[in-house]
C-alpha cells in the first residue's frame, strides 16, 4: 500500500492549490546544444550565434520546448503518477542563455466526470529572473478519487463513484468531527530547501536572481515577439484559446501535503550531470 499512498488523489486537490515552484539552474548554451541534439531540432536560431544575429536577434536562444520540459518536470513531480491527458504551452517570450527560469502552477479546475473519472486542470507558467512571463500553458490530468478507488481499479474493479454532493457531505461531517483529519495520513512538510524561494508570502530571496514570489505573471504584451495567437482551433485543442486569468495568490493557504516533494530538490543534480538512480519517493 505504500505504493498507492504516493499518488496524488482527487479528494486531496482543491481549486487554487499551488504547486511548489521549480527553480531551474540558469539556462546555458551547453544545455541549449544538448537539448537541440536530444530533441533532434537543430533550428539555427538555437545553435548558430552568427545566424541568429544576422536575423536580428541579440543572440541564439533556447527552444521553447526546453522550458515546456521544465514545466513537465514540475507537473509530473506534483501529480505523482496521475495520468496526463493534455499539456499545452504558448511560448510568450524568448528565453536567452543565462536566464533563470521558475516554473509555477495552480489548480484551476476540478471535475467530476461521468463513469467515475476525475479530472483536474492546472494552469502552468514560467517566468524569467526579471519576473517576465516566458511560457504559459495548461495541463489536464486524470486522477483516482482516492486510495480506495486506485486499489479497486488496479485489481480490475470498477471506478469508485463519488458525486460532488457526497463529497461535500463527507467534508462537512469531517469538519464537525475533531480533530479534522485527512482520509490518508501524510508526512509533515519538510523545511523548504535552500534552492527554492521561501513559502509565500515572502520577500524575494537574495541568493538567487529570482523574481519576488508574490508576483502574478504579468499580463501578456499586446504583440509579444514570439507569440502568435493560435489559429482558430480545429478540433480538440480549444482549451488553449481559453483566456487564462492571471493566477491569484492564495498566500499561506497552500496545503502542506503538496509541499512534501521539494525535499528531494535540495540534492538534485545540476544540469548536465547524470541523473542518479536514487529514489525520490
Amino acid at each position: 500500500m505504500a505504493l498507492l499512498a504516493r499518488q496524488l488523489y482527487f479528494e486531496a486537490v482543491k481549486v487554487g492549490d499551488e504547486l511548489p515552484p521549480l527553480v531551474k539552474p540558469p539556462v546555458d548554451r551547453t544545455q541549449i546544444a544538448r537539448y537541440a541534439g536530444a530533441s533532434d531540432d537543430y533550428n539555427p536560431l538555437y545553435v548558430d550565434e552568427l545566424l541568429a544575429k544576422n536575423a536580428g536577434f541579440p543572440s541564439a536562444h533556447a527552444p521553447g520546448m526546453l522550458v515546456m520540459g521544465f514545466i513537465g518536470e514540475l507537473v509530473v513531480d506534483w501529480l505523482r503518477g496521475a495520468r496526463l491527458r493534455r499539456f499545452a504551452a504558448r511560448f510568450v517570450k524568448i528565453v536567452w542563455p543565462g536566464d533563470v527560469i521558475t516554473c509555477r502552477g495552480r489548480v484551476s479546475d476540478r471535475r467530476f466526470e461521468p463513469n467515475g473519472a476525475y479530472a483536474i486542470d492546472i494552469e502552468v507558467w514560467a517566468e524569467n529572473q526579471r519576473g517576465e512571463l516566458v511560457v504559459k500553458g495548461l495541463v489536464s490530468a486524470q486522477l483516482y478519487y482516492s486510495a480506495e478507488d486506485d486499489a479497486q481499479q488496479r485489481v480490475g474493479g470498477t471506478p469508485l463513484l463519488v458525486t460532488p454532493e457526497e463529497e461535500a457531505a463527507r467534508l462537512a461531517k469531517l469538519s464537525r468531527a475533531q480533530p479534522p483529519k485527512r482520509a490518508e495520513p501524510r508526512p509533515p512538510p519538510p523545511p523548504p530547501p535552500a534552492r527554492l524561494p521561501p513559502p509565500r508570502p515572502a520577500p524575494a530571496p537574495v541568493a538567487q536572481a529570482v523574481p519576488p514570489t508574490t508576483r502574478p505573471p504579468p499580463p501578456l504584451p499586446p504583440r509579444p515577439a514570439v507569440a502568435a495567437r493560435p489559429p482558430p482551433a480545429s478540433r480538440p485543442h480549444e482549451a488553449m484559446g481559453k483566456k487564462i486569468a492571471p493566477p491569484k495568490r492564495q498566500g499561506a493557504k497552500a496545503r502542506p501535503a503538496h509541499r512534501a516533494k521539494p525535499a528531494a530538490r535540495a540534492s538534485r543534480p545540476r544540469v548536465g550531470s547524470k541523473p542518479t538512480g536514487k529514489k525520490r519517493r
Partner: protein
Amino acid sequence: MLDKSLIGRESEPWVQAVEKGAIRRFVEATGDPNPIYVDEEAARAAGYPGIVAPPTFPAVLAVNERFRHSLDLGTRTLLHSEEQLEYGRPLFAGENITVKTRVADVQERAGASGPMDILVLEGEGHDARGALVFRAREVLVLRRG
C-alpha cells in the same frame, strides 16, 4: 507567402523506435532527475511497466524533418510559438510508434516586423496495435525576408 494549398498535406507513416538512450539524453538535457525516465526498477516501483518517456518527449517523435523539408519553407527564420500535446496513454521505452504528420493550417498575419506566415503541423503517434498514444500540434511562425 506560404501556399495555402499545403493545408492537408500529409507525411508517409514513419515508424520511430522509442529508445531508452534517447530518453536518457533528453532528460539529461532538460535536467530532470526523475528516475522513472532512466531506471527500469524505479519506473516499475512507480507503477509503470518500464522506463517512461517524459511528457514533452512525444513532440520529438512528432517532428519529421524530411516532411518539413518537403514543404519548401526556404531559409526564413522559424520560431516555435505554441505546442499542444494530447495523450492516449504514457509512452514507454522500447516501443515502436508509427507517426504521421500533416499540415493542419497555413495563415498569414501582420507582425511587428512585417507580415508573418503561421504554419500549424499536427502529428499523431499510434502504437503497434494501432491505439493512439499521442497527438502533437505545433505552431510555427515564419518571418519573411
